């Protein structure tokens, strides 16, 4: 009898709890009705990033103004945040946003965007002559040895989709974005840790070369696999600070 009543009591208590849980799911009791539930997710935490770059880092391919972050290698993305923080890359709103972040948090945010897999969309191209496009293709695939310009593919991978963990892809980017980045190395609004090999290359390109390279890259059919190639797929021909100064130099 004693055991039975204990069991009975336990069942009633359990029943009451279940009833309570149905009536008041966890979280609602202490919560102010005026406040929506704030999810404890990184996505919620980084509203400062996603407001412009999109929830999945898709960017604004129509205008090319806010770059796509989705699927870019994590090491590359974390490096960009650090470069904004250190004032090597200059853009006020990004410098302000990255200013107080820790290296750990920057890496976590970079991993989030690197892991996003969203379809690529095409961006508008300026009208350019076939000769310009041919010059672009030549520079991207073979470089210009007479001016010590290596082929883009020498570092950015044979598929131009980038190489893990530090080298970004070049296909799937808007014309305006590529040409403005190449230009920003020349106007010293974009830089990275020395030796800054992209700075050297951008300064060896002429203005018409920049248009040609950007146009050919932006016009290219996208490969089926847009993921960055595995680490070690390339041997960079220049010394690059961002790659831990690896490469055989030129």
């Amino acid at each position, binding site marked *: 009898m004693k055991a039975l009543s204990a069991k009975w009591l336990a069942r009633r208590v359990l029943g009451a709890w279940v009833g309570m849980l149905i009536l008041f799911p966890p979280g609602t009791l202490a919560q102010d009705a005026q406040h*929506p539930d704030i999810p404890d997710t990184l996505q919620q*935490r980084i509203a*400062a990033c996603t407001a412009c770059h999109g929830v999945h880092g898709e960017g604004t391919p129509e205008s090319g103004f806010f770059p796509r972050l989705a699927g870019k290698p994590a090491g590359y993305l974390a490096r960009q945040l650090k470069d904004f923080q250190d004032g090597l890359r200059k853009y006020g709103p990004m410098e302000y*946003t990255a200013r*107080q972040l820790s290296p750990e*948090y920057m890496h*976590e945010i970079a991993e989030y965007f690197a892991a996003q897999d969203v379809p690529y969309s095409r961006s508008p191209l300026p009208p350019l002559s076939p000769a310009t496009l041919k010059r672009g293709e030549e520079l991207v695939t073979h470089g210009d040895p007479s001016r010590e310009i290596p082929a883009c593919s020498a570092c950015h991978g044979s598929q131009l989709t980038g190489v893990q963990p530090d080298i970004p892809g070049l296909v799937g980017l808007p014309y305006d974005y590529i040409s403005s980045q190449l230009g920003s190395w020349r106007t010293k609004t974009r830089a990275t840790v020395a030796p800054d090999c992209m700075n050297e290359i951008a300064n060896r390109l002429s203005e018409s070369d920049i248009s040609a390279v950007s146009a050919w890259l932006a016009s290219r059919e996208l490969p089926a696999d847009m993921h960055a190639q595995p680490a070690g797929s390339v041997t960079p021909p220049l010394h690059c600070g961002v790659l831990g100064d690896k490469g055989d130099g030129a």
Partner: protein
Amino acid sequence: MKRVIAIVIVALLALSGWWLFRTQDRQPVAPSASQVTEATLKDPALIAKGEYLASVGDCASCHTERGGVRYAGGRVLPTPFGNIPAPNITPDRDTGLGGWSFEDFWQALHSGMGRHGELLYPVFSYTSFTKVTRDDALAIFAYLQSLPATKQAAKPLGLGFPYSVRNSLKAWRALYFQEGEYQPDATKPDAWNRGAYLVQGLGHCNECHAPRDSLGGSQNKPSLAGGQIPSQNWYAPDLSMQANGGLQGWSEQDIVDLLKTGQSARGTAFGPMAEVVQQSTQHMRDEDLRAIATYLQSLPPRVAVAEPKSPLDTRPILAQGAKVYAERCADCHGKDGNGVAGIYPPLNGNSSVNEPSGINAIRVVLLGGFPPVTKGNPRPYSMPPFAQQLSDSDVAAVVTYIRQSWSNHAALVMERDVIKNRHTPID
């Protein structure tokens, strides 16, 4: 008689000219001739104490270039009079404090003079640092001398005439600089005195949290009354217990939380204060943070100044602001403006929302951003920037709505205030 007067005037002018432009002649004290022995400066306990005090004083913040070697100088400090680069204070013999003795260092920190007697620009806050005790200064010096020497020459001064003439500072110093260590108030508890010492001295809080006049002097009476930071265009709020823009309603724990984690139940650090929290206050001991809170909580509210009633009919602005608030802000900050505890700060009663200029609220709406990442808040929630999404009119309306809703009673802001702050440089 006229002639005598003329002679006297000329003599007085000559005398004042001599006083103003005579060169200071102080011989640096060689480290070997210093009263402080090398063994003292190498004492690990003294160095550790100095490291802590250097973080309290946030020395690295000015004396480090973005992305540069800590304490090697190079950060250029913008002032309304020109740009002043912070010097290298690592012990490099040629470009830093390598040849300096403690006597030289004390002369700079306490009296605002270089080792040759030249007058230092008060962007180096010796107006506050003069209150630091000799013992604490010695510890800081020992710590700085223990750093690895980095060779980095000072950048040139970006000051024009007459500010480039260091002796012009004599007049400035006569007006604004009172030399002297902090004198404890025997009628007050130890914690209060410790708090006052940290706030007025090393913490140099009054350098930002007070209005500056046209000559760049900080108001000292009353101190910490809040003021716009020149060239940076942020408003450092009143730190007294003032309602509407001060720390009314802040508990000791709220003050400690903000300084330790960058976030509190009453508000979040952003802009220049985010940097102060990250570089300096988060590293402070709890008892020092509590002492600061004790001192701040003792600051009496100012005499309330009645806001002049706006001649404009603000109802349409408030209606527009309410709409923007409901669409863009309420999800995180709540319809009641009370935020979400531990995640999003309240706007209701927030001192940065209510500060007199409106500049903080405008810039936060435009820039969004993260609170400082600290040990106590390693993955903070952030706010989206609205610069690209809201028009000047919408920003002005929503900021006005926030500043005049719930318990807030601050002045309205205009579209032109938003336009002015859209492209403020970031540093």
